[in-house]
């Protein structure tokens, strides 16, 4: 099982997903993020899914859960770089990922995180 690296820059945790996501990888990411948020007190999480070609209902739900977990640590999550084809498919699946913010790229994601404080 692969592990997705989490990088801390300033008050933000950056996650860039570059691999084909297996279920346990996503679950592991969720656990790791919870650990890091608790350990560092970061106030924001940016998850970059520019390289992700498939987001199905399981992964979609996990992303929403990550948003909820972050909020418990008083941190906001922004999902960035969703591909048009993925967005259209998620919409068709009826998933709106409410509870997480979204942005076109990491730069805009940071603007959102900085704007909130």
């Amino acid at each position, binding site marked *: *099982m692969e592990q997705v690296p989490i990088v801390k820059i300033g008050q933000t945790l950056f996650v860039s997903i570059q691999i*084909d996501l297996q*279920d346990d990888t996503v679950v592991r990411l969720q656990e790791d993020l919870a650990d890091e948020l608790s350990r560092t007190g970061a106030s924001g999480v940016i998850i970059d899914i520019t390289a992700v*070609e498939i*987001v199905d*209902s*399981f992964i979609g739900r996990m992303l929403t859960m990550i948003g909820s977990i972050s909020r418990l640590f008083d941190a906001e999550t922004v999902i960035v770089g969703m591909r048009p084809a993925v967005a*259209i*498919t998620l919409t068709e699946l009826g998933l709106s990922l409410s509870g997480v913010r979204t942005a076109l790229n990491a730069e805009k994601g940071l603007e959102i995180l900085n704007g909130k404080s």
Partner: protein
Amino acid sequence: MDELPIQSGDDVVRVRQQVRTAAAENGLSLVDQTKLVTAASELARNTLVHGGGGRARIEVVKSANGRAGVKLHFADEGPGIADIGLALTDGWTSGNGLGLGLSGARRLVDEFELDSKPGTGTTVMVVKWSR
């Protein structure tokens, strides 16, 4: 026609990749490829998690007016689905809180057939056509 085992998370990823290849090679648009692979992901996961493991088959088909399409076949010998109508309702979830994703998968494809009986397992067949 390829037959692939579904016994682990790695297998699910492999199924996704093979479906992606088949879809791309047969003229499906990028969005349609994504929809088909996402549906395959849902169904493969069901086969693994709820069916106790099974197999998938990928087939290239041709419609009556000559268009190419990709047909997927998922089968398992798991516990089966007691109430198919309910399972196909949007938002239905099984006992452990994770939705079966069947209704979602159905919306992403052009043709969808589900056969399941408690005790004899489940088979799902889907087709997505190129435009």
